[in-house]
């Protein structure tokens, strides 16, 4: 298959970027989107030209590194897939494809298609954990966790931290990412003691990082490669209101409801 690519090239955060055109020739239909870029980059390297910089690692949809807007859609046309899981057979031969980095004020471009997503780590630092220093844990089966709670915690915990939700959101909100962590931990009995303190701290950090607010467009759940539902945002909002209304962020939770 052959494609014409219009790819965003930008030397660094300070300089302006532009779209450059490349031809991707003789690409097997079984190749993944990233393997198609590998082919283009291989030719560029042989010509002594700088290859297109893009974040990638596991190439099986779990590390959350890859992050491209393909024709304006975060992670491209396949639902529930990261960029690395999109195969060229999904496109038509001869198609013109535009490839850009995540677009968000909170994710400055580092180079070409690579953005700085460290704001997401800082949201976790603010409270996205259960304080359980190594060594003090009691037997794993001492606390029973109903299967449905454990399963819904896992649904939320499936987030890979890629930032597609932010890129897809017209407001640039990180609510799906943050809500997913709050729901994962808040569904479990182990997560109750810090539940309200956690939501306050994480939401405050989102604001600090210049993410926008959520107005329930729902674009995030459409773009999410793990298809995490916006239910997690509702849960975050509810916990946040409870935390603010009771003014007792340190109080213990009321069970994993």
């Amino acid at each position, binding site marked *: 298959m052959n494609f014409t690519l219009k790819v965003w090239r930008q030397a660094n955060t300070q300089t302006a970027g532009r779209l450059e055109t490349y031809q991707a020739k003789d690409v097997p239909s079984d190749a993944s989107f990233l*393997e198609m870029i590998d082919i283009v980059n291989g030719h560029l390297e042989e010509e002594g030209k700088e290859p297109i910089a893009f974040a990638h690692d596991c190439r099986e949809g779990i590390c959350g590194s890859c992050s491209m807007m393909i024709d304006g859609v975060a992670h491209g046309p396949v639902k529930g897939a990261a960029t690395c899981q999109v195969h060229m057979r999904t496109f038509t031969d001869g198609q013109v494809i535009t490839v850009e980095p995540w677009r968000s004020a909170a994710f400055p471009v580092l180079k070409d298609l690579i953005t700085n997503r460290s704001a997401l780590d800082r949201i976790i*630092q603010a409270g996205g954990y259960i304080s359980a220093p190594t060594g003090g844990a009691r037997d794993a089966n001492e606390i029973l966790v109903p299967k449905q709670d454990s399963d819904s915690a896992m649904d939320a915990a499936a987030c890979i931290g890629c930032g597609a939700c932010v890129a897809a959101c017209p407001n640039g909100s990180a609510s799906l990412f943050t809500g997913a962590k709050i729901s994962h931990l808040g569904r479990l009995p182990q997560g109750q003691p810090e539940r309200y303190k956690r939501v306050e701290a994480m939401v405050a950090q989102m604001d600090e990082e210049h993410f926008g607010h959520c107005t329930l467009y729902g674009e995030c759940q459409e773009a999410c490669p793990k298809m995490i539902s916006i239910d997690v945002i509702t849960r975050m909002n509810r916990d946040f209101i409870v935390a603010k209304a009771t003014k007792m962020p340190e109080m213990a939770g009321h069970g994993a409801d």
Partner: protein
Amino acid sequence: MELKSKIPSGPLEQKWDSHRFNMKLVNPANKRKYHVIVVGAGLAGASAAATMSELGYKVSCFVYHDSPRRAHSIAAQGGINAAKNYQNDGDSVKRLFYDTIKGGDFRSREANVYRLAQVSVNIIDQCVAQGVPFAREYGGLLTNRSFGGAQVSRTFYARGQTGQQLLLGAYQALEKQVGKGAITMHTLTEMLDVILVDGVARGIVARDLRTGKITSHIADAVVLATGGYGNVFFLSTNAMQSNVTATWRAYKKGAAFANPCFTQIHPTCIPQAGEHQSKLTLMSESLRNDGRCWAPLRKGDTRNPRDIPESERDYFLERKYPSFGNLAPRDIASRAAKEVCDEGRGVGETGLGVYLDFGDSIKRLGENAISERYGNLFEMYERITDEDPYKQPMRIYPAVHYTMGGTWVDYNLMSTIPGLHVLGEANFSDHGANRLGASALMQGLADGYFVAPLTIGDYIAQAKLPAVSSDHPEVRAAEAAATQRMKTLVNIKGKRSTDSFHRDLGRIMWDNCGMARSREALTTAIGDIGALKEEFWRNVSVPGSDADLNQALEKANRVADFIELGELMCRDALEREESCGGHFRTEYQTPDGEALRNDDQYAHVAAWQYNGETAAPSRLVEPLTFESVQLSQRSYK
């Protein structure tokens, strides 16, 4: 150099306890005065960094990813073993110990493996306390599944994303400490060298991948938790950036490299589709719980698998290994699949594949039950191959997955360089010549949460370390050498891409140092790798500048080390004149084609000492003594 394993004396069951009692402690108020550098933030690195920070040490953590959550541990699917015996099926610390020693084909240290089995139970407790959502029964208790090489159910799992959930647990513990200001995190920063002062590890040289700036960092102890080197084969299930550079640089500074030829070829991966392929995808071993491996009885049978009647199918694992069947260990299952394909009975376009069939299980349990267990894996398979595994059997073929070899470490996980500790897949310690499924996650977390934080404390308490300033001649020299290497690479300005060299290296390694090895093939490979190395340093094209974000340069720097490692692997495979675990020498096999060990001459660890660019490395030997288990020919029949 002498290899001192420092295994504590006394009965096996009490070694770790008595060793912990004999350790020197660092006063809690003094811990913050000591600086520990941790390189890597996968399961081993993140858990070690978090735990040492919780204990009070000043910790800096370096990762080449943009976030510690992206380390390759995240991709582990199937599960983590622990001797909890929650299923009441006869499991115990001793049984997990024995299964692991036997699974490793009697080429690992008894004392290390016993300790691993002991702390396995604490790992599960720790992870559950952190909020890891392991699979549960309706009554709220944790559930387990079986894995290869064991006849008990001791594997804990979180759907097909166990590695992800365990890593996120460790990552969150790490980020909590970062948020408190107790850990300094260096993301997008790659270690280029270890700094030695008076023969002791005192820091690292690292490159900021955003700007290309090279800086030195001084510490009282250095920890490498930088993963395995499977990408030496170019195609493997490892992530694209997984590399050997950290441990290879340490090797060249004097840290002996043990058993480099012990690599694991995983039996259940999606077969390669074509030349463009950049990596291979694993299908979790847990699938073998319900999937049956088979190939057509007749050569060149190209019928649709559903049209091949039972009587014309060869369920080769069940036939050859009736007592373990489809749950035979990885090395054995891989070799069996290769044999079938070598006989011309392989399936798929390339003939390099066998079926993994869920037809019977779906009939027995229903599609829903199978989807509940493996839904995400089936989806992943369909996405890649465009075939529906609910309707037709999966096609699988072995692929490089894990490396048992790595930096040699003593019982305290310290390398032959004092002050340099190596954890997780990066060390050689626990899996012998073959690793059992669901044991890598166990080892990474055992090392990071429960072993290294104590043994490093013991080291710090006893080491008398003079202050080292950033303009110490050794620091300056290491920094200058690293800078020069980067400049050399960008100035070669040759004609070939780094990937083209990497692909060639991978082909040499897979053909000669893969599932079957021979004296002749290995000797040829060593010559071919030498020629490849010469051409690389003359003809590689690394566009762009060293003072910039430059992925071509990052790759070239790593592949240069892979080429050298490849040579050492072949050398190690050549010198080990026996077959054991994943190391299969065609000259040494039983009449029915199983691995033929030579315990009289090779019941030892081979660790390689670097002797400079021009001299051959020396092969050092650490004899393995077995007091609690009887060496036997491994049988899964």
